[in-house]
């Protein structure tokens, strides 16, 4: 007993204060790749190496449409290595969660030279991801929502719908003393009947489809669904095949998408806080209605 106390005292507090304070992350961490469309002279090398097709091209005559989908990205960094003109840069941004799937897709159109390199940028549909970046106030708002509306606790039911277990490891890490989501009143629960939020990982396998639907059905209204990781958002590297449906939103209405492969714990927390906002709106609607 004495030993336990001694170890506890000598260890001290290890809990990080994200999002109230920014986190310290290794300079080598690979976050969101950013694209300088003006500078990009040839998108083919990056598209060629991308393991999941997150960068895709469609050429028509002398024009090319380049699409970048962060929902498919596994953050491997190969695109930055492949683009010799340094139009693709790996940043440290990880707060990419959004409630609108379209927010994760960038698109640009180029005119082409005879050698299929870019001659000029014709138009850009979306330059950068339009996500909630004021995480600090997001955290405060979420805390208030949990305090006032949710009776001081938010209950999450997690379902692995075919993940490789990578996302689960990071979700489990949310409960360790460093990330400790209980400081927000957030807890993971065993029964869907107790849950306000369904956190789903994996590309939704045919063998998990029914179990996922039943879990969602068992939850009381109002409820929100969060799709986690490249697989949950888009099928990731697995995509659609005989055994995989290829995304959570094929089966359930999704409120928030959290990109990553897997998303780091802070990215998960950011997405969960965002989803709490959605839940608050829905509670409000329910009462008004």
């Amino acid at each position: 007993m004495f030993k336990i106390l001694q170890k506890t005292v000598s260890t001290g507090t290890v809990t990080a204060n994200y999002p109230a304070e920014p986190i310290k992350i290794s300079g080598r961490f690979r976050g969101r790749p950013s694209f300088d469309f003006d500078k990009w002279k040839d998108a083919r090398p990056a598209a060629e190496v991308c393991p999941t097709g997150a960068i895709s091209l469609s050429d028509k005559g002398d024009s090319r449409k380049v699409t970048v989908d962060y929902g498919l990205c596994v953050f491997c960094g190969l695109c930055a290595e492949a683009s010799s003109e340094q139009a693709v840069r790996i940043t440290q941004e990880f707060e990419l969660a959004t409630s609108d799937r379209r927010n994760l897709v960038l698109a640009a159109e180029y005119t082409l030279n005879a050698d299929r390199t870019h001659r000029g940028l014709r138009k850009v549909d979306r330059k950068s991801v339009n996500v909630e970046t004021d995480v600090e106030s997001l955290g405060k708002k979420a805390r208030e929502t949990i305090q006032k509306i949710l009776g001081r606790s938010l209950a999450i039911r997690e379902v692995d719908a075919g993940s490789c277990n990578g996302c689960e490891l990071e979700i489990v890490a949310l409960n360790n003393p460093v990330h400790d989501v209980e400081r927000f009143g957030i807890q993971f629960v065993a029964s869907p009947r107790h849950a306000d939020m369904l956190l789903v990982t994996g590309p939704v396998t045919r063998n998990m489809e029914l179990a996922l639907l039943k879990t969602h059905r068992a939850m009381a209204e109002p409820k929100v669904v969060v799709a986690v990781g490249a697989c949950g958002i888009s099928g990731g590297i697995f995509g659609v095949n005989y055994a995989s449906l290829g995304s959570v939103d094929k089966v359930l209405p999704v409120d928030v998408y959290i990109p990553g492969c897997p998303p780091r714990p802070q990215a998960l927390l950011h997405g969960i806080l965002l989803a709490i906002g959605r839940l608050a709106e829905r509670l409000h609607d329910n009462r008004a209605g």
Partner: protein
Amino acid sequence: MMTQSISAMFEALRQKLGPQVQSVRADREDEVYVLLRDADIRPITEHLRGEFGARLVTVFAEDRCSAEGVFFNYYVFEQKGSAQYLIVQAPVRSDTLEFPSLSAELPSANWQEREIQDWFGLKAVGHPNPRRVALHDNWPDVYPLRKDFPLETVLPPFEGERHIYRPAFGEGVLQVPVGPVHAGIIEPGHFNFAVAGEPILYLQLRMFYTHKGTEKLFEKIPIHKAVFLAESISGDSSFSHGTAFCQAIERAASIEVPLRGLAMRTILLELERICNHVADIGAIATDVGFVIANAHASRLKETLVTLNEQMTGSRQLRGMVCVGGVRRGWDQAQLNTLRDTLDSFAREFRDLISLIDSSESTRDRLEQTGVLRPEKARALGIVGVGGRASGVDLDVRRDHPYAAYPRYSFRVPVYQAGDVWHRMQVRIDEVNESIGIVRNAMPDGLQREFRVPVPSIPSDRCALSAVEGWRGEIIHWIRTGPDNHLQRCKIKDPSLNNWPALVEAVQGNIIADFPVINKSFNLSYSGTDR
């Protein structure tokens, strides 16, 4: 068998088994193929097991109908004390599509033979329980790993039958269904317990809920992208599976990875082992109510994944291994971080273990709980941590050396008791050994080259690669195809061998101890289901 020259081996097998043995060839010094004239694997299996005490490593099939007009089954054997793998290749009869089952004799073949039935539509004759396993009972009759089945096929909603579990009878006997969605944040699978009061009579497992067509997908995507698929076979073993895959390609294309690349792989493989073992030690403590130990263990794990990120840019060591070596070198600052983090980790780990050792009640709950006896472990073909705690002295790092392991000495801990306590003990010993390996490998991590350029991969070459992941023996077998693609990729995660160990170990234990027994094996569902 395995110290002979190829021609002597051929003569000896011919003499023993007659004209059924068609040819023997060595693709590599440690990878020998014996081609049979028919599918009858029983005589040679009996011979290899009887004469040489050979162990069946894995069983899988390949559709060679368009190339050679036939399906092949492959049976991989190893012999204690030899680095060689002996792979018996047996054609399946084209008219009946039947092959004889080994499962009654060798339970480790059970699920693997049924996978072959489900995925290829071949029939394992004499299988004691030939029901569906990899595709659930409600699936239509499709054979997705046949070449004429397109990967992208979208099947209509399933309307087939439900799985029927073996019933349990008797006064006070009842069945407890659990899953596929479990109480905690873990992977999905179904456990059906038959209990008489508290004690478990027997456990029926139904897995493959996370089957996502991985082996078929390997046949579609180009090799350099497939490395990322290998990293997603089992998320907690991304580096081990990634390495196993790259090694297979390197063996097929005779690519020599420079020492620095090999040493860096060795270091990262060991970091993956330490990370997962520490997490498991904490989780085992939690499952018997010693949560403070888990608080420390998960804090330590967090410092290790932070180190992972510093060394590779990913908390799970992803995007680092590549065909030809590793993608990025390390500078002195990174190696200093590695050394310092490991030093402080080693101190903290000692504290954690002494905390656990000082808790009599924890020891009391873990000793004699979930016992897997050595003779059972051997009969079931158990590998890895679960095997070593039950007297099965196997470790790919020592038995089939790869990466830079031959350069560093380490001990392989083996216990006979086979209970949860000893499965934890194996992990504790291995963490300490791993720290030693990493320290010894660090100077080699600063040599010059860490990667060689990769030529175009030659077509139609077979290669077997093995890695001792933190859970146990990982096998990847590939056949290359044209244009840097694969024709076949077989993946065997150690979990596939080890689920029967769980079934055996829980018998007679109370149902409340199931979580800790399950955790003490901590098998990968995704690695099993692929």
